[in-house]
Structure formats: structure tokens, C-alpha cells
């Protein structure tokens, strides 16, 4: 075993010096390879981070949301609706929610107006999300007038701005008092927007959803796991689509790698010829060439991956952001949590290093089986 390691060490040593002798050619290849890894790694690191951000945010949301449908459209929950549900086994709590959308002609954007469940807000006061703070210049103790759909003007005092950490969910949020909310929207008394249920056992969620459908045929239960699944599929799909498009560049790179290693310079040919003449076997030359490929591929992979990491988590993914993130006027500004996933790393490795190795196999063999005699004579 020690012999083997010793042998590989010497081969690697030789390879490194021989790579250094042909700097320009190898650096060119390294840069192109690293760029390819950088682009692919950026895409997958970013989607991975978005996906886990969605999971993290949804973890705190209720297990089931029930909406009532009229003619296939979302409608208000009437006052006696909750009694129809009664007691459901496995449900920890049932709560009603009041929320709605408001179109602000000043910003040309929609706000989400909501009555919070956990915090009380005095009449005439509101709490706004961070995006509203920086786009409409609202701060604590500033006033704002909103024109309701009835045409009346309502004035509110901003008493607080929600923390930036929650921006992904609260960017366009306006929290207000229940009385204000009903007056502002002319919302009928006793009616609600929807109902949320929290369920203790995750395995029961689906059954409770089915029971709800039976009891309330006009209701549409939305399960948290379904929302999560949709996010998962969408992000994975977008990532896959982008990777499939980028596969053209992988192919191009494969061709480049093939070209580079087929075009052996006269020097390299002579080098191999001399090596064989002084007793190297074909196997040794293949091993040496393998180490050469490995050194290039590995350093390019590492280099590209680190660059992509910096690009995604410190430079906000500015190159490809619009493709993957989607777009909105009040788009939340958020920082992604840096993370690396083992499966994603292996996938990326297969996407980049495997095509490279496959492309250089034939040239390596051609080089290694060159006859010393013919080379030295020419």
C-alpha cells in the first residue's frame, strides 16, 4: 500500500511540474472549466437556498387553511359556517382570519392588509412591512392616507415597522385593527376571509382535510405540505430547466477539452517518447495523464464552486436573479442562509467533471500509446 502511495505521489509531482511548464494552455482550460462550474453551481446553490428558505418560512404557517368557494371563486366565510365544523378530533385549534388586498395607485402595487391574531393594534394605528418602509418612506409615527374602495379617505398612524428578518413574508404587509379593517373594506360583520386549523399530528393532516371536504362541500382545504410540495417542484423544475439549457455549454466545454488534449504539441509528444524510452510503461503514462486531468478538474471545480458561493450568498446572485426569483413591485429584499447540500454537490460534480473525463479519455490513450521510436524520429 505504501509503495502504491509513494508511486502516485511521484507521478503527481511529475505531473505538477509538467503542467507548470505549459502554463498558458492549462490556465486557459482551467479558467473556462472554472467558469462553467461557476455558472452551474450558482444556479443550483441559489435554488437550493430559495427552497430551504420557503421550507423555513412555511414551517410556522398553519397546517390547514380552509377557504369557501362560490362558483369556483374564493368567497367570505359566513357567520354560522364554523358551527358546521364543530369539534374535529386531532385539531388543536380553529381560528378565523381577516385579510385582503389593497391596490395602492401611488406605488402601483398591492398591499396585504391583515388583522393580526397574536398582537393587538389600537384603532387608527397600523404596523407596516419593511418593503413599505423603504418604498413609501413610512417610518414610526408617520401618517398615511389610504383611499378605500368606497371612495372615502382613511388616515392611519404608523406605530411600528416589522423586523427585516421576516421580510420574505411581510414585505407588503399592513397590520391593522379589526374595526378599522371592516370599516375600510366595508367588510360585513361576522364574516371572515378564511379559517386556519392547526393539527398536532402531521400524519392526520390529510385525513382531516378529507373530513372537512365531506362536512363542507363548498370548502377548499389547502394543506401546508401541498404548498411546500409545489414550491419544491417549482424550484427544482426551474433549476433543471436552466441546467438543461446550460448543458449546451457543457457540451461545448467537452469539445474544447477534447480539442485541447488531442492537439498534443511536438514538445509533449517528445516528452512522452522520452519517458517511454527511459522505461515508463503505457500504464504509467495513462496514470500521469489521469493525474493531469484530475488536477485541472479538481482545482477548476473547487475554484468555480467557491466563486459561485460568494456570488450567491454575498453578491446576491446578481447575474441570474430575475430568471429564478420571479418579479414584483414590492419584492422583498432578503438574505439567503448559506448552505451546501451533499447531493447537490455530487450532482454538480457529475455535470462538470464526468463530461470532462469522458472527453479526454481517447486523447489520453492516444498520447499514452504513442511509439517512442516514431516520435523521436520525427
Amino acid at each position, binding site marked *: 500500500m505504501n509503495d502504491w502511495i509513494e508511486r502516485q505521489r511521484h507521478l503527481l509531482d511529475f505531473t505538477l511540474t509538467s503542467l507548470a511548464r505549459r502554463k498558458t494552455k492549462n490556465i486557459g482550460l482551467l479558467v473556462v472549466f472554472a467558469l462553467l462550474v461557476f455558472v452551474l453551481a450558482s444556479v*443550483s446553490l441559489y435554488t437550493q437556498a430559495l427552497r430551504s428558505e420557503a421550507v423555513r418560512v412555511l414551517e410556522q404557517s398553519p397546517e390547514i387553511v380552509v377557504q369557501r368557494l362560490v362558483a369556483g371563486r374564493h368567497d367570505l366565510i359566513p357567520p354560522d359556517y364554523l358551527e358546521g365544523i364543530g369539534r374535529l378530533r386531532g385539531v388543536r385549534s380553529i381560528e378565523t382570519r381577516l385579510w385582503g388586498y389593497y391596490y395602492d395607485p401611488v406605488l402601483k402595487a398591492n398591499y396585504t392588509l391583515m388583522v393580526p391574531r397574536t398582537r393587538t393594534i389600537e384603532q387608527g394605528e397600523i404596523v407596516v412591512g419593511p418593503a413599505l418602509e423603504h418604498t413609501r418612506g413610512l417610518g414610526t409615527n408617520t401618517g398615511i392616507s389610504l383611499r378605500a374602495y368606497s371612495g372615502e379617505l382613511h388616515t392611519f398612524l404608523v406605530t411600528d415597522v416589522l423586523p427585516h428578518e421576516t421580510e420574505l413574508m411581510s414585505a407588503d404587509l399592513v397590520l391593522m385593527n379589526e374595526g378599522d379593517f371592516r370599516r375600510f373594506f366595508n367588510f360585513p360583520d361576522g364574516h371572515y376571509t378564511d379559517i386556519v386549523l392547526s393539527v398536532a399530528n402531521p400524519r392526520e393532516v*390529510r385525513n382531516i382535510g378529507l373530513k372537512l371536504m365531506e362536512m363542507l362541500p363548498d370548502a377548499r382545504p389547502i394543506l401546508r405540505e*401541498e404548498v*411546500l*410540495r409545489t414550491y*419544491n*417542484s417549482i424550484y*427544482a*423544475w426551474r*433549476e*433543471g*430547466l436552466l*441546467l*438543461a439549457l446550460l*448543458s449546451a455549454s457543457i457540451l461545448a466545454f467537452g469539445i474544447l477539452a477534447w480539442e485541447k488534449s488531442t492537439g498534443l504539441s511536438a514538445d509533449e509528444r517528445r516528452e512522452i517518447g522520452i519517458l517511454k524510452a527511459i522505461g515508463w510503461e*503505457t*500504464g504509467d503514462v*495513462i496514470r500521469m495523464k*489521469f493525474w493531469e486531468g484530475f488536477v485541472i478538474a479538481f482545482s477548476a471545480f473547487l475554484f468555480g464552486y467557491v466563486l459561485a458561493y460568494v456570488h450567491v450568498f454575498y453578491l446576491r446572485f446578481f447575474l441570474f436573479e430575475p430568471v429564478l426569483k420571479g418579479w414584483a413591485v414590492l419584492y422583498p429584499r432578503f438574505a439567503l442562509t448559506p448552505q451546501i447540500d*451533499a*447531493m*447537490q454537490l*455530487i*450532482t454538480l460534480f*457529475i*455535470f462538470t467533471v*464526468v463530461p470532462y*473525463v*469522458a472527453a479526454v*479519455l*481517447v486523447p*489520453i*490513450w492516444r498520447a*499514452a*500509446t504513442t511509439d517512442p521510436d516514431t516520435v523521436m524520429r520525427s
Partner: protein
Amino acid sequence: MFFQPTIIALLLVAMLNAAMLAVASPYAWQLIRQWDIGSGSDRQLRLERLTYFFSTLLVFVCLLQIASTLLFVFNADHMHTMFVGAMCAIGTLNVNQWGFPALYLQLALFFMAALWLALNALDNRARDYPLVRVKYGALLVLAPVAFASLVVQLLYFGNLEADVITSCCGSMFSEESESVAATLAAIEPGPAMVLFYSVLLPTIFVSAWHWRSTGFSRLRAGAVGLASALAFLVSIAAVVAFVSLYIYEHPNHHCPFCILQPEFGYQGYLIYIPLFAAAAFGMASGLLAPFNRFSSLATLAPTASRRLAGQAAVGYALVVAVCTLMVLKSNLILLD
């Protein structure tokens, strides 16, 4: 559902492997018919030159295959969040009828690739390529399996539909059902434990004996190979029948895939990685032994076989140690 990065990667590997084996097959056929190490003819020189290429190619194919098997299982576990009713890899594999065949083909290819690598390593050490025909004969066996694996994976991934309600491990390993999985699950933990230890301990013993003994016996090497294969099957059965119960601390949860999940601290990898490695080493040990009848391998084959047996012994000892530890540290009490 082709547009998932890992699925694209898996299919890429499967296509590359099938393509490379397809390129190598005609050459393998020619080589089996015309190889003559004693001859100095042009044809023989050309063949010898080509073996360098195809050996390197196949080492690459086999290494890729081993990585792809791991990635396949990893991916099946990872994707369960996308399917209704799926809670682990079982759900993902059950989405259509091609999931489990794809897994079995991957596992078969894993062992074939590992055995081929062992053959190749031994052959490279001898001066006169004594195993060339065996190696390329094996390639002709490997190629159709790799091709089948590609087709089944295409069918499996192509027919993945996220809106199909799949069955979770709870229904597959329930004791009333009549599948192989259910039969395994229905084995009582007590007898399963007896079976596990009474197969694994002798396997470790015979492997260690073969490793350490001075004389060489083909019979003993064969016993190591067979025992390793048997121990592999028994260990899988043991994971389903009792080890999983102790890990989940639940008397009815038999799933061999949920233990791969983060909720259970990825403990499954602690069992499966040494288990698969040990099975591959042990089988290779048995496979290489008979080749000591070639004069150039008279000492090389036994040495390789012994070393592999040693690795198998270590691997299985790890499996037993890890399983025992998991049973002991669990809070579940199944047997008094």
C-alpha cells in the same frame, strides 16, 4: 419529470455508461476470439494497445456506476417531499411500477461493477494479462444490464407524476400484506436476531480466518464469497425485521429507507455503507481465488483474495457492531 437536476445527472451517467459499453462490446468480442499473448502479429499488437484504452474506459464506467447507485438511493430519499403520501424513498419508488426494478438493476450493477474492478486490479498486476478473456467476457454480461438499467430509469423518471398518490412504507411493510417486504417484516424480532448473529458472526470468522491463515484454500475463499452474499441478504432482512424497529423506537415501523433521513440522524448510512462495501469485498475475494491456477497469478490471486477477505471481515464486523449498538442504545424493549 425529467427536469430535476439529479435526475438529469443520473440519466446522463446511465447514458454515458450504456454508450461506452456499447462502443466497447464489439471490441470485447473480437478480443475474446483473437487474443493470443504469444503472437507478435500486427493484430495482436493493436489489440494490446486497445486494451489500455478499454480498461481505462471500463474503470471509469464502473466507478461512475458505483457513484450513480449511491446517488440513485440518495435521490429517491430526497424526492419524497414531491409526492403525495410519500414519506421516504419507498414512496418515491412506488410512484410507478418502474421504481423498484430501477433500484434492483442499480444494485445489481453496483456489485457487477465492483467485481469487475477487482478482476481488473488483479489482472493489471500480472505480467501476461491472464484474465483478459474473463474481463471482456464479463463486459459482455455487464453491457445488457447497463442498457436495461438505462431503459428502466428512463421509464421510471419519465413516468413520475407528482399528483399520483403513492403508498408509504407503512403500507408496504405492514404484516398483513403478502409481498416479500411484508414477509421480511413479519419475521419476529427474536428469531431474526438469532439468524442475523448466526450468519454474520461465522461470516466474519471465516473471512478473518482466510485473511490470516498461511495456507491457501480455494474452498475457504469460495466459502467467504458465498457467506458474504448470504450475509448481505440476511443483514437487509435484519434491518427490516428488527434493527429499524429499534432505531425508530416503534414496534411496527419496519422501513429500511426512513433510517436514511435526517430525523434519524442519517443512521442508515452507518449500516449500509460498510454493508455494501463488505459484501462487494467478500464476493470479490471468492471470485478471485480460482484464478491461482494461472501461473502468473499463482501467488497474486491468493494474496488479493486474502486481502479482500480481510476487508470484508472488517466491514461485516462494523455492520454487527453498529447494529448491536443501535439495539442497545434504543429505548424500545421488544424482548425481555
